[in-house]
C-alpha cells in the first residue's frame, strides 16, 4: 500500500489536486486494528516519511477495487449514479499518469487475490480511450513481478510505459545493504519493519520516490533523466521502458508533464487594445504544454483507399480463377 500512497503523495506535492486523482486502495491497512501506528503508513523502515497524512481522499476502497471498476474508470462507461469524484473526467488535452502495483506475473496483475487483469485488457482499455479522445498522453508505470510484460501489448499512440522488472524477474521489497561477507546467492529478500511486522515498500517504487523527492514544481528534469537514473543493482531487477508509441522525444518531455499540475504562464508585453488583453488571459489558463497536433490526415486516407482497392481486385481475381478451374474440371471427362 505504501507504493500507491507514495505516488499519491508525490503527485499531490507537485500540484495535482484531489479532484484530478483517482486513488484505489484494496486494503485498509492504516486504520486496521492490527496496525500499531493507527492512521499511519510509513514509506521506509526508519519511519521518516508518513504517507497517509491528514488530507487524503480514497475514491475506491476495499471491495470496490475490482477489474471491472478499473476498466470502467478508464473507459468512462459507468452507471449514471456514479458520483463525479469516482469518474475519470478527462478529454483529449489531458495527460494521464496510471500507476499500478500489486502481485502480478507474465502479462497479468492480480486484484484482491481473486481476479486478474491482463495486459490485453489494459491495451484494449487504452485503445478505447484513444478512440474516444479521452487522453492526450498516457504515462503508464507498473511495479509488480514481471511488470514489463504488462505494457508489451499496448498498441495505442502517445503512451509511454515503464515497468519494474523483466519477464522472469520478481520485484522485491527494499533490501538493506548486503554486508561484505554475506553469501551472495542467498540474499535477504525483504526489509521488514520489526514493529509493524511486514515489508513496507518495494524497491522500484522506493527508487522512484526518492528520485522524486528532489523534484519540485519548477523542475525541468525530463523523462530521459528519470529513466537514466534506473540502477538495476539497487532496484534488484531490470526496469524497462517502452517508448515506441510515444511521439515526443523523451529529452523534451518533462517529469512534471505527468506528475505535476503546473500552469504554463506566458508573459507577454502589455497589450495595445482591450481585445488583445482578453486573448492573453485565456492562454494563461492552460495547464500542460501543448504538443503540436498531428498533420492533416489526407495522405493516410489515400493509402487506405489504395490498399482496399487492391484487396478487392485480389478477391475478385481469386474468385474468377476458382470458377475457371471448376469449369475446366467439370468439362473434362
Amino acid at each position, binding site marked *: 500500500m505504501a507504493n500507491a500512497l507514495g505516488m499519491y503523495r508525490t503527485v499531490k506535492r507537485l500540484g495535482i489536486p484531489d479532484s484530478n486523482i483517482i486513488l484505489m486502495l484494496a486494503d485498509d491497512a492504516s*486504520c486496521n486494528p492490527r496496525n500499531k501506528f493507527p492512521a499511519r503508513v510509513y514509506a521506509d523502515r526508519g519511519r521518516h516519511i508518513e504517507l497517509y497524512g491528514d*488530507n487524503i481522499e480514497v475514491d475506491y476502497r476495499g471491495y470496490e477495487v475490482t477489474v471491472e471498476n478499473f476498466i470502467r474508470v478508464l473507459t468512462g462507461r459507468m452507471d449514471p*449514479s*456514479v*458520483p463525479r*469524484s469516482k469518474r475519470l473526467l478527462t478529454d483529449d488535452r489531458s495527460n494521464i499518469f496510471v500507476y499500478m502495483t500489486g502481485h502480478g506475473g507474465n502479462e497479468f496483475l492480480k486484484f484482491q487475490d481473486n481476479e486478474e487483469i491482463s495486459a490485453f485488457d489494459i491495451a484494449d482499455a487504452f485503445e478505447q480511450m484513444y478512440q474516444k479522445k479521452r487522453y492526450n498522453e498516457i504515462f503508464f508505470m507498473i511495479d509488480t513481478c514481471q511488470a514489463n510484460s504488462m505494457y508489451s501489448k499496448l498498441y495505442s499512440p502517445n503512451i509511454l510505459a515503464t515497468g519494474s522488472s523483466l519477464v522472469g524477474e520478481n520485484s522485491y521489497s527494499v533490501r538493506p545493504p548486503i554486508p561484505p561477507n554475506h553469501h551472495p546467492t542467498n540474499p535477504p529478500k525483504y526489509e521488514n519493519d520489526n514493529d509493524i511486522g511486514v515489508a513496507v515498500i518495494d524497491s522500484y517504487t522506493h527508487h522512484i520516490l526518492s528520485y522524486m523527492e528532489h523534484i519540485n514544481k519548477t523542475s525541468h528534469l525530463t523523462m530521459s533523466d528519470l529513466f537514466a537514473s534506473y540502477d538495476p543493482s539497487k532496484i534488484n531487477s531490470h526496469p524497462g521502458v517502452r517508448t515506441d508509441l510515444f511521439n515526443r522525444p523523451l529529452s523534451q518531455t518533462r517529469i512534471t508533464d505527468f506528475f505535476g499540475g503546473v500552469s504554463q504562464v506566458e508573459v507577454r508585453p502589455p497589450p495595445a487594445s482591450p481585445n488583445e488583453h482578453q486573448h492573453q488571459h485565456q492562454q494563461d489558463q492552460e495547464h500542460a504544454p501543448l504538443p503540436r497536433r498531428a498533420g492533416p490526415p489526407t495522405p493516410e486516407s489515400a493509402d487506405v483507399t489504395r490498399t482496399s482497392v487492391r484487396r478487392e481486385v485480389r478477391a475478385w481475381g481469386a474468385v474468377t480463377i476458382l470458377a475457371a478451374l471448376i469449369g475446366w474440371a467439370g468439362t473434362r471427362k
Partner: protein
Amino acid sequence: MQAGWLVRLLLGSFLLVPTLGYSQLEQFDEELTIKSLRDGKVFSKFSFTTILKGASPRDPRNLGTDDVSQHYIVFPLALGQILREYAVTELHLSLNAGKWNYDRWGYPEEPGVGTGAELWTWMGDSTQSSINERWRGLRNALAGLFCASLGSLDEQRTTSPARSFLPEGHLPDWGIPHQIRHASLPSENVCTENLTPFLKLLPCKSLSGIASLLNPHRLFDADWHGMSVHVLWRENRGVEIRLTFQTISDPLRLSSGRKQDWSFRTLFDRTIEKTCPVAQSSRVVVTLPTSVAYAIEPEPSSVVLGLASFDISNSIKPLDIGLRFAGDFQYPVDFDAPLTSLSVQRILHGSSQAYGQLSVKLTNHQAEPLRVVYLETMPWLIQFYLHTLKIHIDGMRNDNAMSEVTYIPAVPHARPATFQCVLSIPSGATMDLSMDVAKSFLRYTEHPPDAQRGWDLPPAVFTLIEANQTSPLNTNRRLYTPTLLVDLATPDFSMPYNVIIFTCSLIAFLFGSVFNLLTRKFVVVRIDPDKKNE
C-alpha cells in the same frame, strides 16, 4: 449609449430582487463536550451545527423543474446540492468503528453507534422520481462525497423500519407521504479519508476553532470512534446540518503512572490556536468529576450544575484545557455495573454451516417494567424460522411478552428480512429470545474476495418506549447490539480449474480410445517358419 446605463440599472435591479428574496440567515455553532468516564476513559463529542434559517427541504414534486438558486455562506454547498438534488427531508449518516459498551459508558449523546456505516433518510414520495431511484442516487452521491463504499448499500441491505427510526425533526406537510429508507454496512472501515471530506464541509475546515483539534492520528487510535452527519428540518428554525464526531479515548493507556488526567495535548496532540471567525458560539463543556479531587485549567468561563463551560472566543490562545486528578486512578468496584436501563446481548449459536440459532438476551435494570421495540434487519443470507421463536423470562416460557409483530420476510438475492416487535420485560428480569435460523448457500460469484472471513450481520436496534407511551417518540433512546460474523459454506474456488482439467483429460482419453478402435486395423502377421530358419 444613453440607454445603456438605464438598461444596466434595470438588469441590476432585477438581479437584486431574487437575491434579496433568498437572503437567508445562516448560523454556525460549534461545541466540544468532554466527560471522564467511570472506567478511566474519556468521552469527547465534537458537534458542528449549521442552521439555514427559513429554508425548507425541496418538494419532490418539483423535481422535474429547475431548482431555485442556492446561495450559501457557511452552509456546506457540496452536501446542500446533494440534498436538493434528491429532495431529502431528513438524513442521518454515521460511520463508526469499535464496539460501544453500554454497560461501562452509558448512553452516547448521538444514538447512532452501530459499527460500520449506517444511512437512513426520510424522503417524500413523488411520481416525478420514485423514492428508490432517489435513494440510489443519494447513496452513490454520499459515497463519492465521504469516500465510503456506501454505493453497495443496495436493495439487498435496504429496509424501511418506520417504527424504530422516527424522524428527529419535523416532516413538511406537503400532503404526500414520507417514507424511510435505512441501510447499514457493518464491515465498513473508517479512516482518514472519511474525515477529510467531513472537515471540508465545515466553514473553518480544520484551520481554526474546535475543528483544529480533529487530529486523525489520535482520533483513529481511540477505543471507539464515530462520525455522523445529521440533516433535519424544524418548522420554526429551518434546515439544520449537524456534524458530530464522538470518541472514547484512553488516557490510562498513554500515561505510565496510571493517571486519569487528560488535556488537549494528550488527547488530540493539538491545541486551539484561533477562534473560527464565522462561529456564532464556540465553546467547550467539561463534565466535572463529582467524587474525586481534581484541578481544571484554565479557569472555566462558567460552572453550572457540574458542567464547566469555556468560551473559546474569550479564552487565551493557544488554548489547552486539561483536567488533573489528585490521585492515581482506582477502578471503582462497580465499574461494570450497567449504566443503562437495558442490557442486550446477541449471539449466533450453532456450528453447522446450514443451521444456527439466533439468541438475544435482554436484562431490565430499572424498577419498572420496560417495553422496547426490537428491530432485526437481517440480510437474506440468514433466514428466520419464525415458528421456532421462543421467549423465556427468568427461565419460564412466556411467549406473550412479544406483541405487535411486523415481519417482512427475506427474498433470497433480493431483499433483507425486517422483523419488528414490541417486547415487554418485567422489572429486574432477564428475557431470553431464541429463534432457529437457516444459513444460505451462496452462488459462487456472490462470495466476496475474502470469502473465508465470513459475512458481517448488521446490529439489532432496540428503541426504548417511555413509560405511559404506546409507541416510541422521536426522543426515545436507541440501543445497538454489536455486529455478528456468520460463516457460510464456501465452495472450493479452485474447482472450475480442476473440472476443466479433469474433463479435458477424460475427453482426450475417450476420444483417443474410440478413434484408435475405429481406425486402427489389426492384422495378423504370419511369420514363415522356413524363412525364419534361413
